[in-house]
């Protein structure tokens, strides 16, 4: 439903109209999901009211550390990204993909109908649009289409928000995924003090805007929107050099840095769980005690788990260093071979939410040997 012929006209949406936007979507049958404060962080949950948005709050992030902080204003989207990503709605952590029941006539297998919930995601950042684009490739553009993801994705309505600030963990500029939202949305907002610049990215978005009390933009508002969006570019301090990154990593598989990072890495899976593109899962057959009904359950899994590479001869990657190397080389190198894109969008979640603050940009720089790290290992 995105990228059709559109007027492309930007309008001004007064702040009070955000509630109308939520109401229109809800009346249209959408489950509106947006940022809200819960458990000392800004997370994504179902919302019904603008009051549930984290107005006046921001996040302070660094490797292994996240804190909420009061802003001096009442901005609705004055933060970057939290521990949740939209992945939890499009690719749920636990799904029953099939079931079977023992009857007198034998086993009766059944495939559940895909979830028909229509989600409207409010507040999708540019890096997250890129992540959804990557998961689209993984789940829907290969030989096998994932019906669970495809159904939820097809029904989703996306309201993007341009970042007006960057955290020290952000590096979307390096990954060429942001901070400006350029495609992949139905509507995009840029927050100003008294309202939003709103633009449509689809016919559905355009018709929704028609139901809102928008105004023509003033030249001052256009200038201000440009300036706050530029702020998100200017504030980015973290950098990942992607030049030839695939070959740099794949020709350094025996670099001493892998063992050093293997000693720091906890193998706890946090980075893969918070990553908006990591897509690994495992499937288990779960029977009831009578053994007469059985469900095939798919749950999120991680390449950091020992059991993940367990095969007939044993565990293939039986050291944490090997598992970290597998994750990083897949994410930044072999993902290109597999999906013709990097697997990283530069959102910085894996840096913030690593309990010991491991920073992939620092690790890549060390392996590249650009002087910012202590390791001196060579290629094999």
């Amino acid at each position, binding site marked *: 439903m995105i990228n059709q012929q559109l007027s492309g006209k930007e309008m001004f949406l007064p702040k009070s109209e955000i509630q109308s936007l939520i109401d229109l979507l809800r009346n249209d049958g959408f489950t509106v999901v947006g940022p809200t404060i819960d458990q000392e962080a800004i997370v994504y949950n179902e919302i019904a009211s603008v009051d549930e948005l984290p107005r006046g709050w921001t996040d302070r992030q660094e490797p292994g*550390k996240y804190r909420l902080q009061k802003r001096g204003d009442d901005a609705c989207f004055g933060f970057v990204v939290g521990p949740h990503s939209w992945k939890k709605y499009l690719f749920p952590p636990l799904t029953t993909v099939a079931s079977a029941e023992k009857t007198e006539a034998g086993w009766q297998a059944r495939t559940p109908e895909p979830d028909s919930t229509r989600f409207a995601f409010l507040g999708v950042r540019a890096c997250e649009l890129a992540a959804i684009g990557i998961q689209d490739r993984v789940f829907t553009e290969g030989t096998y289409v994932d019906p669970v993801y495809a159904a939820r994705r097809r029904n989703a309505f996306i309201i993007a928000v341009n970042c007006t600030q960057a955290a020290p963990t952000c590096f979307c500029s390096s990954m060429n995924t942001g901070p400006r939202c350029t495609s992949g949305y139905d509507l995009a907002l840029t927050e100003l003090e008294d309202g939003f610049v709103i633009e449509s990215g689809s016919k559905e978005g355009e018709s929704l805007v028609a139901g809102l009390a928008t105004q023509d933009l003033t030249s001052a508002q256009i200038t201000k929107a440009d300036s706050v969006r530029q702020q998100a570019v200017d504030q980015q301090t973290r950098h990942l050099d992607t030049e030839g990154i695939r070959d740099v990593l794949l020709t350094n598989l025996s670099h001493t840095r892998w063992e050093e990072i293997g000693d720091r890495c906890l*193998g706890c899976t*946090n980075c893969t769980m918070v990553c908006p593109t990591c897509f690994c899962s495992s499937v288990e057959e779960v029977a009831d005690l009578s053994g007469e009904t059985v469900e095939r359950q798919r749950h999120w899994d991680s390449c950091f788990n020992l059991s993940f590479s367990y095969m007939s001869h044993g565990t293939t990657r039986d050291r944490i260093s090997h598992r970290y190397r597998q994750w990083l080389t897949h994410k930044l190198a072999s993902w290109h071979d597999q999906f013709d894109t990097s697997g990283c969008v530069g959102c910085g979640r894996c840096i913030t939410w690593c*309990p010991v603050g491991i920073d992939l940009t620092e690790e890549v720089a060390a392996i590249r040997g650009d002087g910012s790290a202590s390791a001196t290992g060579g290629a094999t």
Partner: protein
Amino acid sequence: MSTSAGKPKLGVFKFASCDGCQLSLLDAEDHLLDVLGLVDVTYFLEATSHIEDGPYDVALVEGSITTPHDQERIQDIRRQSSFLITIGACATAGGIQALRNWADCDDFIRTVYASPEYISSLATSTAIADHVQVDFELRGCPINQYQLIEVIQSLVAGRKPRTRTHSVCMDCKQRGNVCITVATGEPCLGPVTQSGCGAICPTYNRGCYGCYGPAKQIHAQSLTDHLIGEGAAPAHVVQLLRNFNSGAEPFRDESNRVEALT
């Protein structure tokens, strides 16, 4: 698992423990009758005074070894059991009572008992696996009743039990929990602790106490270095590691290392 006489015989045996793990079998309520349909319970003093002699196809062993009598009794149970499963942190790692391993047990006995000469106790509390071969260890303080049912069910069906070995972090993330250490600075053992409880404590805003013991291949020092670097007192970190699974080697060794720093 099949036996010539029909259903497998199950014995439940207790050593030094609080009984909580055995109770989780009785707490199975809705599933209890189904479980009893899978096995013949022939020895389970917590549940019934009706006992039958061994041998047992399956022995569930709760508790740690703390007395000379325990040392002999576990050998006897092992001899009579085809498949021996330890249930809970006491049986698997020595339990909270393994804190005596850092103290003088005779001091405790003299302080607590009016006539210490009647007490026959070992200086240490140790895991069942330190004394006999254990076929399967079910972790937790207490164990998760659904995991216990799964283990019994899998044994009867002759398949591998679905008891996952990943960290507590993965359960937190799948529940949508925000990481308590990253977001508040509260120390949590989740990254180095094996799954099993479903991340109960972090779900209620408490750091993980490590009830299910160390996950496989953990780097406890990386976590403790980070916690101390972020301001946690080393003595607090030692207490965190010396809990229900203080006797588990990775927690024991790391607590000793951190203690030496204080």
